[in-house]
């Protein structure tokens, strides 16, 4: 079995009107045996950047702490918070450092980036396990249910969804895709990020 499928789990991020959403399931398994139904794989980097880390569980924890190290160093030296695009490149270079012995994670990022005029613009990005960046305009997906997430997202997403509508769209995408994947599910969590607040909700879904 592929190492990326060992623990299971999936993440998706979507762009809305002046907002972004990022969501993941909560399952952690040992191949076919499900172990945890509250395994967090989405973490805040700043008030306005969240990163989702689907893939091998031990690497989820390790990468989360490595990014914390590097972002702390960035913040303390630059005396300002890191911007989403910059963080995306930080993720890419951190992964490429291990080009020939990679972390088994395909990160997904969502955030709000500052514009020159002082406003905020929605931002999403994803990389493969060795750091190839993808700056999509609509949505990015990763994890064991990625092909299912692509299918449902392509069918349900439309541009300029308001935060509450984006929440419904990303939730339905995640739930229906995870229900067709044996290794994803067992609970789900969604974060909606706007320029001044973040709303987090857990979803009621099938627990099988």
């Amino acid at each position: 079995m592929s190492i990326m499928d060992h623990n299971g789990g999936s993440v998706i991020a979507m762009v809305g009107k002046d907002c972004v959403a990022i969501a993941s399931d909560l399952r952690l398994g040992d191949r076919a045996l499900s172990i945890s139904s509250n395994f967090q794989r989405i973490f805040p980097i700043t008030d306005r950047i969240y990163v989702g880390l689907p893939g091998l569980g031990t690497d989820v924890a390790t990468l989360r702490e490595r990014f914390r190290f590097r972002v702390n160093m960035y913040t303390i030296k630059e005396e300002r918070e890191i911007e989403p695009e910059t963080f995306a490149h930080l993720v890419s270079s951190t992964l490429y450092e291990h080009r020939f012995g990679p972390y088994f994670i395909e990160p997904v990022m969502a955030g709000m980036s500052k514009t020159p005029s002082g406003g905020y613009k929605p931002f999403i990005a994803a990389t493969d396990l060795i750091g190839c960046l993808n700056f999509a305009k609509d949505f990015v997906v990763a994890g064991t249910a990625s092909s299912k997430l692509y299918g449902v997202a392509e069918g349900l997403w439309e541009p300029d969804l308001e935060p509450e509508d984006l929440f419904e769209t990303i939730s339905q995408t995640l739930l229906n895709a995870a229900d067709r994947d044996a290794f994803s599910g067992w609970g789900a969590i969604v974060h909606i990020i706007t320029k001044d607040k973040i709303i987090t909700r857990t979803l009621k879904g099938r627990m099988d």
Partner: protein
Amino acid sequence: MARRYDSRTTIFSPEGRLYQIEYAMEAISHAGTVLGVLAKDGVVLAAEKKVTGKLLDLSSAKDGGYGGSGEKIYLLNSNVIGGVAGLTADANSLVNYARTAAQRHLLQYNEDIPVELLAQRLCDMKQGYTQFGGLRPFGVSLLYAGYDPHYQFQLYHSDPSGNYSGWKATCIGANNGTAQSLLKQEYKDDILVKDAIGLVLRTMSKTMDSTTLNSEKLEFAVLTLDPETKRPNAKIYRPAEIDALLLSEGLTKQDDDTEMKAT
């Protein structure tokens, strides 16, 4: 007289001294003063800037970042503020090392680095420069104002030799002797931060070289504990906040000329 024994750090003089280290401390005695006072509920740091002038671009200190012009007082970690006296370039290198050391500890133990441990990390490195490699020591003394859950608020001082000690109140840089004796007289064990601020500013005003006591010459920082979250709160004051503080303490000193014109 001692010429043959001072060009290499790794050599003792016949009198048993390491001259390079002593020369480093001599360099520091000409640098801007840094003062630190430990209180029951926090630590206060103040420093005299030597690099000033109208042409200096301080726009980043005014609005962005953490305050502080980046000459004397630095944020080392969320729970430790450092004050430096000596060669600024050497200080930058040490501050960078301290910040990395703090993150390495966080990565390994998932906790903020204990203050004394951070001081030890830096001192271990500094001592190495006095014994191996034939490289000159760092011409910097540091004050570490920090908090950890084990020993609460602490204040440490380290010098180029790689030695360090813990203090209730101390001073490094120019006029540190004067400041030290002033602190010895006025310091009380159970002092609170709000009084420590006053003590620090009064002592600075008496020992600083310059005639003016304002945000142009002064850097100021306070480390306290947030009452709700129980986490350390490091605050490096912006120029406008320093001026406001001096005003509230009644210490706004003007040029002698302006003072005379007023009276």
